[in-house]
């Protein structure tokens, strides 16, 4: 379980996120929705440790990791799939997974297999440099890398943005499947329809504050769209 408690985050003198509370229980998808510039990515980067939290706390399974370095949080079970289908472009797809497996320790080999079962298309391209893969394949590789760390909570930033439609459905299915298998998922997504259908709870973020929250479900779309239009 991941808890963000009253988290304030900023760059330089500017504070971007002003005291946000979010809780991601095991086996649930929690969606953070909002317009560009609302502070969604900033919030996620602070959750995984790439940005310092100015005040407030980040807890993984009840342990305070607010001051922990990102790789230490990974070891606590917090995985991160950043925006933009990021991979190590000069490494092959296989090396991308091995890299994570080296650091992840026991059971990593089995998790590599499981991740490849989830995205069978990756098996075909394991020997290719990740920089030469398509956007959809790179995103699947990014999620596979996160899974190899053996996470309890996964932080996903816009997993379907800029990806060909045929692969979007695969990625959405994978997110739902993973949550059903017990993974907590903190999801930032522009595609409100999918996010709400998958989510147990949603939070609308606007100018760094949560302005609306509620239970997920596809039927909430109108309420959320109204809240976001404000």
């Amino acid at each position, binding site marked *: 379980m991941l808890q963000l408690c009253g988290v304030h985050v900023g760059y330089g003198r500017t504070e971007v996120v002003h005291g946000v509370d979010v809780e991601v229980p095991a086996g649930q998808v929690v969606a953070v929705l909002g317009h560009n510039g609302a502070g969604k990515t900033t919030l996620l980067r602070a959750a995984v440790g790439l940005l310092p939290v100015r005040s407030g706390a980040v807890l993984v399974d009840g342990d305070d990791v607010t001051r922990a370095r*990102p*790789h230490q949080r990974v070891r606590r079970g917090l995985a991160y799939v950043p925006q933009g289908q990021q*991979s190590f472009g000069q490494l092959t797809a296989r*090396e991308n997974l*091995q*890299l994570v497996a080296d*650091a*992840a320790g026991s059971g990593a080999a089995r998790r590599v297999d499981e991740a490849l079962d989830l995205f069978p298309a990756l098996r075909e391209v394991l020997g290719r440099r990740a920089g030469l893969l398509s956007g959809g394949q790179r995103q699947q590789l990014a999620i596979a*890398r996160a899974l190899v760390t053996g996470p309890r909570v996964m932080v996903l930033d816009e997993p379907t943005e800029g990806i060909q439609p045929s692969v979007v459905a695969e990625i959405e299915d994978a997110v739902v499947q993973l949550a059903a298998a017990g993974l907590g998922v903190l999801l930032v997504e522009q595609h409100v329809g999918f996010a709400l259908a998958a989510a147990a709870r949603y939070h609308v973020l606007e100018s760094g504050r949560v302005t609306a929250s509620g239970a997920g479900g596809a039927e909430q779309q109108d309420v959320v769209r109204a809240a976001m239009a404000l």
Partner: protein
Amino acid sequence: MDALLPQLFAGLSLGSVLLLAALGLALTFGQMGVINMAHGEFMMAGAYTAFVVQQLLPDAGVSLLVSLPLGFLVGGLLGLLLEVTLISRMYRRPLDTLLVTFGVSLVLQQAARDVFGAPNVDVRAPAWLSGAVPLLGMDVPRTRLFILALAVAAVLALSMVLKVTPLGRRIRATVQNRDLAETSGVSTRATDRLTFFVGSGIAGVAGVALTLLGSIGPTLGTAYVVDAFLVVVVGGIGQLKGAVLAAVGLGILQAGFEYSTTASLAKVLLFVVIVAFLQLRPQGLVSVRTRSLA
């Protein structure tokens, strides 16, 4: 024609020395982007390691074989110490790094003067490396052949480490995308330290090799550090094969210029060629290509 082959070999030999000096720098400067002016002093430390070892183990052959790994260790530990105490505090400040490491290089030179004295000292080459072997109608000094073989071995070893070992994967991943490596569970700080250890260790090995070519002194490193940076810049940042091509190319050019002119004019001509080359191809011989930056 008669002069061509010896010149080519002289160039290759000079290139192998340059390569040994530059290989560690290809890692710390080329891959990590650290401008370490004390790199030459790590070579000097390696050379004095060979000197000290020979005082303790008088058999020149044994002492050479002991000095090579020990030189790696001494250079590597000095590098590690520098990284942990100073460089790690200024990763985003390249100019400060340049100044600080230049200061460290002066301190190390003076330390060597205080410990070993200002005059140069000699390290005896083992008997099996004295003399020359006839090769393609030339008399090739064995020490030169040994250094050539050592350079080839060092390149092969380093590229294997980078290609197939977990440490190599971590180094390549950290160089490409530090944040992504960190959030993939890689401790990028630990990786930086190890990379710096290996790069500085290779400088130590280069220093041991240099004892075979002549006497050594506290300023041994300053003679090589500029050339080593040139090799890395001409070769192209972040690519080992670029450094290899550049070292051999510059070695052959310099030897050729030296043959047809004088040593100092050769250096001038070489710099002119490098400046012209970098105008045409600022990214160096070999550049990184990928479909996306990520």
